[in-house]
């Protein structure tokens, strides 16, 4: 998926709550690439335009699982805390 695609997908999935601007998107993508969580390659878009595509790597998969676990723990905790008060 290319950068714009990722950005649009997030927008779609979150019902427009999160709009990732290029100023945040690209630094984040490059950081993740440097960490080895995603791999980048040049490809053709559906309209035959050259675009940079990103694909999740194995390390990225692991990282995602870890982060997801962490997040659900935190959100659960916060949810509980908010309910309790």
């Amino acid at each position, binding site marked *: 998926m*290319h950068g714009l695609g990722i950005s649009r997908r997030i927008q779609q999935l979150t019902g427009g709550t999160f709009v990732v601007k*290029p100023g945040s998107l690209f630094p984040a993508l490059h950081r993740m690439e440097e960490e080895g969580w995603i791999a980048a390659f040049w490809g053709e878009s559906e309209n035959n335009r050259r675009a*940079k595509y990103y694909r999740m790597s194995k*390390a990225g998969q692991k990282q995602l699982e870890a982060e997801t676990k962490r997040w659900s723990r935190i959100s659960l905790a916060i949810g509980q805390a908010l309910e309790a008060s």
Partner: protein
Amino acid sequence: MPLLVKARSFLRNLFFTRRVDADLDQEVHSHLELLIEEKIRAGMPAAEARRAARIELGGVEQVKEQVRDSRTGAFLDSLLQDFRFAIRSLRRTSGLTVFVVITLALGIGMTSATFSMVDALIFRPYPVPHPSNVVTLVGTTHDSSYENFSYREYRDIRDNTKSYDGVIAYAGMQAVGFSAEPGVTPRIKGGVMVSGNFFRVLGVEPRLGRGFRADEDQVPGRDAVVVLGPDFWRHEFASDPGVVGKTIHLNGTMFTVIGVAPDSFPGLLTFGHPDLYVPLAMAPVFSTNLGKNFFEDRDDRELTVKARLKTGTSLQDARNELAVLAKGFERDYPNVTRSRGAAVYTQFQTRTIEDDNWKFGVVFVILALAVLLVACTNVAGLLLSRARERAREIAVRLALGAGRLRLIRLLLTESLILAILGGLAGIAIGYGVIEWFHSKDTIVFATELPLAVPFQMDKRVLLVCVGLSVLSAFLCGLAPALQSTRVDLVNALKSADVEVPGRKRLWGRNMLVVAQVSMSLMLLTAAFLMARGFEHDLMLDTGFTKDHLLMTTFDPRLIQYNATQTQQFYKLLAERMRETPGVQSEALTQNIPLGNDDFDGVTFVPDGFTMPPDRENFTVTMDTIDEGYFDTMGITILRGRAFAATDTADAPRVTIVNAHFAKHYWPGGDAVGKHIRLDNSAGAPVEIVGVAQTIKYQNMATPTDFVYMPLAQHPVARMVLLLRSSGDPLQLLQPVKDVVRSLDPNLPLLQTRAYEEFYLNQAVRGPQIAIDLVGTMGLVGLLLAIAGLYGLVAYNVSRRTREIGIRMALGAVSSDVLRLVMGKGFALVGTGTALGLVMGFALEQLMNSMLFDSGGVDVVAYLIVVPSLFLVAMLAAYVPARRACRIAPTQALRYE
């Protein structure tokens, strides 16, 4: 694994910057294209879509910059940018850069050169593996905390201690008569007697052959084996690898070469690099003390004892163990070991206790650091004024969103580059000074022994240079960087003159002026005191005549004379020399005043003197002389008589003391006719027959008690012949050689020279170099301070041009203005002076306690220095103030 990925990206970012950047550029652009396409597809007109896409993207360059900042190694990248920028901006102001670099180089160079002295005298580790384990074992007495041990004591220590992996002993370097063939007149080389385990315990592997075996140091006089020093091997044997197994002659005895020490081991002495090592058991060939038996007498203390501490044994354990042993010595041998303790020293302790010269080094370093500090304040002042001029540039950068920290970093990078350049130039200067120390004519060792100046630009000195450079970068750069980035943006952008006369800001520069004045004053005080101390020592009447004297040294042991033969030789030598035409008088002495060798000590109890409760006896320095000595040296006998030919070995024992001694022990009465007893109160009585004038015996020393013994009653092997000539003393050289040849053609003449020349090299040159060094530092400091002071004050005043214009416009007359600015300068210099005087006084106390009493405050020095600093400050304030007064108010108000 992730680390590897990261490292790869880091390297890629660092080395393929262009490719990474092109890739990023393409990516952002393709993103833009995709966005546009998306908008068009959604039904926007092409132009509208392009605009909307650009707005959504928010600027191609900004996005790219954000990505760059988040990259691995972004910090390094920006650091490189800072460096490139700093170098560009420094090149633009190359004059200033050169001045700053020279200023810092002088400070750093002087510090490195002086630190190399302290390094060589204290810090340089022994040239052996694991040098920090090597400790020194010493005896202690009431008067001294550094006493050698005798051979018997060494053996007891070696065999009865458990704290060490080995205990070694060695004697001081001594003159050894060396000849490759028998029958050739021996030449003098520096030999050291060492214990059989010396090389093994120190962990030194000979480069050729082997070290000593333990059994080669067992039987006195049996194993005549020798290990050569690396330099000696190179020069005398042309690095012959077949030297092992050859025989050489030392003091007339045949020795077999068994090994050559490696280049990495020039010996354990600070100044000397021994030519030869021989086992202690060969002492009969080398021993210096005729009156004692090296192997038997527990008070023939000639050996330095060192040991390798076992791992896991603490220094305290070793100390306790040795203390117990020393108590045992005192109990078992009360006659020779009364009130002697023992101590174990680390290398640092050893070096600082055995020799006082390091103190001079430390004072030199303090002075050099003061020069560096003055240089730093100078540079800080310069950078500060430069930063002012760049205020607008900095304001623009801040306005455009540059972070303050980032700007401070940029400015610090600039001063760091300056400091590094200064450091490099400083290392070059330091290297030059050290080379100068090494050059043949600078420091002359008036001896045949292999002595060398140990100062070197080694890695510790280099490290100090680098450290000082970085430190001075912060000292010079931090204040200007902090100040110039703390600007009021609006004001700064409106005009180039961002002078907001806040107290805080002025305070910084005023501080610099005060620091400058006080530091240079302290430096000058110290330099003056130091120079005066040395000069005082030089001017001090030595108390004896130095001209028209020829000196030459004999050591009949070199050709195997026994005590009787030696005595006979000196008797004949003196007689024949007296008959030689051109010789006015003749003298024999064990040591010449202000010579290389330490005087022997004599232990005694003065008759009729109430001893302090904790003392058994006293020890003072002494010399052994013949009856011609006082006459030849021009030393006055104040009371009683000089030695005479009648004071023979069979006659009652007599001695002559100096006036200091006489006054010390018989303050009211006459010392002549009184007795001293040797060693202790039960010792042999010796009658004092004369009191000689107190002379200067050693350099930089206060007058001390001194005792003379007649040669006939106190035989010594190695003696110096002194001849007083009517004309050029060197003309007596041939007659002396003739006489000696008639007595024994094999006996070498050692250290033959005119005493005056020797005196100049020995006693004058060292202090003179010190005076030069200190004088140079003082002068450089003063010049830097004057330049800096002028710059700072003038700059401060010129910044007030507009203010002066306003004052003038409002009706002030120029005298008011002058009074105002000059009063300010006066106050600052006054504060600096007061501070400087206090610091100078503190330093003087320190120097007096450490080195010598230089005789209080030098009023003349202050009378010269203080007014000249005031004058400079006044001039510096006057010139720009005058100019400011002269220009028309309208102009001044527009002045930027």
